[in-house]
């Protein structure tokens, strides 16, 4: 099987119009190190994305974008020189290499560089890329979602269905000898509905995707997403004001992993710990969570949104254990931080595009299963919140304070899920909340790929996953006091 597009081919890739081979890479890297840099890498990227938006019963707009460029990075000590170009002529590439080289001011000829091509794992081999499939098939998927949502309930007044797809073809060459090529597909399907009843209006949505081709829809039909969006919107029509104050929380499996992502994930990215700005600085080997908690960052999950065959520095991504039975085991490393910590990179060096330098980033961050029955977890709560769907979250790296917004949640009263609640935020402190994990289900789910993570202005696709989780107390930001 292949993940190559039959329609779009990066000119720099093997078999492209102007392939970048070991000789060209060696020449550019030598130029990049000509002022005395310690290390250099080249990041070639060719990205094609497509978007289809279905609205008011028609495919209203279709779009496609092609971006292409080269980013050159040169390191001298802790300092990075970075330059990029969108034109891939040899003059333009030389210019980028010379510009990035200026971070070093020494001079002298670099040691000879030998670059060897290396193959990568195959975690997202898809039979046919969605980009290569006739547009009319994608239009029909959107039409099916639209028809289903409208037929599902007379209170549905608007349906927006969207399909987006991309391929990202990358080629990385580094002065420590790597030459790696990968093609990364990514697709996402979503339905959003608005319902009206009795003077109230609400929205609901459902979506998913990952590094799939059209086979995604065998497991997740447009009809399923449409019904799920309508279900959520109708349920939320009756939403009441959420309570304000500290309460026990039960998090549904899957998307709730976004809490992990905020509460511990970011703080375990190695750059913040190298700079000692994270609340987890110097905490390896200490207890940072309840002993129920084992957290991994797993880049190897087949077809997941956060999965990669190679990171954006050419390193091999792994499944790394971050927290084991509550004890902090290690950080997510890029090349630079791994050097500082005298360890090997964990393959977490990622970047948004050739326009940005790599940073330690999450891939798929998962809290592993516990032993509890999810039903028992809900039954154990006298008064609390059941959190089912999420808008996103944010964390303050320096001290671990985070927020986490709920778009579908319910009150739990006497061990039963009862009234739906209006949109509400949870706020807490990462280490504090992780210590308050008191029950953990055996029902781990991985999010159906919708999440994008932002850091320093760079967005990358990520996956999250977890079982049903009970946290003994979190501050709920509702407006109902008492």
């Amino acid at each position, binding site marked *: 099987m292949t993940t190559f597009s039959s329609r779009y081919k990066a000119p720099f890739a093997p078999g492209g119009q102007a392939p970048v081979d070991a000789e060209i890479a060696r020449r550019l890297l030598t130029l990049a190190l000509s002022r005395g840099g310690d290390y250099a890498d080249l990041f070639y990227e060719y990205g094609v994305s497509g978007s289809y938006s279905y609205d008011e019963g028609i495919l209203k707009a279709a*779009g496609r974008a092609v*971006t292409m460029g080269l980013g050159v990075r040169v390191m001298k000590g802790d300092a990075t020189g*970075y330059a990029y170009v*969108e034109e891939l002529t040899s003059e333009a590439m030389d210019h980028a290499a010379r510009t990035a080289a200026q971070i070093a001011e020494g001079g002298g000829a670099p040691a000879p560089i030998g670059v060897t091509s290396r193959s990568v794992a195959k975690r997202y081999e898809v039979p046919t890329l969605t980009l290569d499939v006739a547009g009319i098939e994608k239009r029909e998927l959107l039409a099916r979602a639209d028809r289903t949502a409208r037929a599902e309930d007379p209170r549905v007044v608007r349906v927006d269905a969207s399909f987006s797809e991309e391929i990202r073809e990358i080629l990385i060459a580094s002065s420590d000898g790597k030459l790696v090529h990968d093609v990364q597909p990514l697709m996402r399907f979503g339905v959003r509905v608005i319902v009206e009843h009795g003077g109230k209006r609400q929205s609901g949505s459902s979506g998913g995707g990952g590094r799939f081709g059209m086979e995604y829809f065998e497991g997740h039909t447009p009809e399923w997403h449409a019904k799920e969006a309508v279900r959520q919107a109708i349920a939320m029509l009756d939403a009441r004001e959420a309570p304000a104050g500290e309460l026990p929380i039960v998090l549904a499996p899957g998307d709730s992993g976004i809490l992990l992502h905020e509460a511990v994930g970011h703080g375990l990215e190695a750059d913040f710990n190298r700079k000692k700005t994270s609340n987890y600085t110097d905490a390896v080997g200490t207890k940072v969570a309840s002993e129920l908690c084992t957290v991994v960052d797993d880049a190897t999950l087949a077809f997941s949104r956060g999965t990669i065959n190679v990171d954006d520095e050419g390193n091999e991504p792994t499944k790394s254990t971050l927290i084991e039975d509550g004890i902090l085991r290690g950080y997510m490393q890029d090349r630079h931080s791994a050097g500082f910590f005298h360890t090997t990179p964990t393959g977490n060096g990622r970047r948004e595009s050739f326009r940005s330098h790599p940073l330690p980033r999450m891939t798929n961050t998962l809290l592993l299963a516990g032993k509890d029955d999810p039903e028992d977890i809900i039954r154990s709560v006298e008064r609390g919140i059941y959190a089912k769907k999420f808008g996103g979250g944010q964390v303050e790296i320096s001290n671990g304070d985070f927020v986490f917004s709920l778009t579908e949640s319910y009150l739990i009263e006497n061990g039963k899920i009862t009234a739906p609640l209006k949109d509400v935020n949870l706020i807490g402190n990462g280490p504090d909340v992780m210590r308050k994990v008191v029950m953990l289900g055996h029902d781990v789910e991985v999010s159906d790929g919708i999440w994008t993570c932002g850091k320093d202005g760079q967005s990358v696709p990520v996956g999250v996953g977890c079982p049903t989780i009970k946290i003994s107390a979190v501050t709920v*930001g509702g407006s109902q006091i008492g």
Partner: protein
Amino acid sequence: MTKQSNERVDALLALGERIVEKARKAGADVAECSVRQGDHLSVKVRMGQPELVEEAGSKAVGLRVMVGQQVAVTYTSDLTVQGIQRFIEDAMELAQLSQPDPFAGPPDAALLSTREQHADLDLFDPEMSALGAAEALRRAKDGEAAAFAVDKRLTNSEGGSFTRAAGSSALVTSGGFRGGGEGTYSSIVVSPVAEEDAVDGAPGKKRSGHHWAAHRKLRELQDAGDVGREAARRTLAKLGARKVDTQEVAVIFDQDAARSMLGLMAGAVNGSSVWRKSSYLVDREGTRVASDLVTIVDDPQLVGGPGSRPFDGEGLLSRRNVVIENGMLKSYLLDTYSAKKLGKQSTASASRGSSGGVGPGTTNFVLQPGTMTAEELLRSTDRALYVTDMMGFGFNAVTGDFSRGASGFWVEKGEKVFPVSEVTISLNVDQIFQRIDAVASDLDMRTSIASPTFRVSAMTLAGK
């Protein structure tokens, strides 16, 4: 002196014209091409040492075509002959896939502006490009050093950064519009970290804070040292922050927090959200949506403004729009499409995204300042949470429900008495704006959405 007509812009216009002509030949009834070119220098210093020097240029084209009333958009930064050919072919192929939209269409040709009408808004600083990496690093370093010099409790740093950027753009449409311009931007950010003393053997919390300045003119940019000292002051003020009890209380939003609230209003009055029923302000034109202290104007004609522009994303002459006047909703912000959907005229608020798509947007979207100073506002407040930072995404645009993480200060009898963190504030946004009972005079125009400090009479604070 800005030149609306110069070699760089003329070259972009020429490229746009060639693409529009090719698209028309390929069968497009309507073709609109935007061309953008830019370059920037960004540097970052941390703990006195250079951390990053980034320098790059970019150039790309976006295209919107209509075949009948079937619409497609494409974008490419591959400007080789084959790249541009494919970009046009893709647009034509996708337009065949789209279905006829009875509301699609270009603006009425009679409404298009001409280059002679385009005001010189003084958006370009010709001196900026001369600033090199060494000087940029010096400024970033000075900013961080000034912060460290303030207090020894500032033990760490997320760095000092300096950026300068320049961009030029052109828009050419088959309806006969041609326009372009250039702009520059510079900014400096300093982000120190302070550490609290250990309490009962437990390590204190780290607190990070920051301050920043931005301007289109290098000479007008705030001094790096002043930015650093202000960043230090803000960071130190957070030391010892704690939760407060859950209660209903007045909330003061400082300029940064207030800007974030104004951003929610910008979304709610966006014509596209309105016709999609994705705004809590659907069907509210002409009604009260805020207290009578609230007047919000979107003004693209501000000289030197961060969001200023002489024409909109469809080529209409930009104009000042009063969105909310003394609390009454006067006008949504509309492009040609959303105007047709709502049976109105465009307010010349079209914004053309880099991907080629067009929708309504804001330019300089500003809550008009009041008469009391921010200090007077604080002193006139008996008890309140004074919010300086908000976190998270807790906002439902359809219903207006709002709930966000907040930190800042506790106010008693007109004074900030201690710092607060890890609480949330909530209230429907419709109510938040109607409960504004004081607006200060401290407007600054660092950003295109800008607000002075204001106070909301009561919100729910969730804490302990």
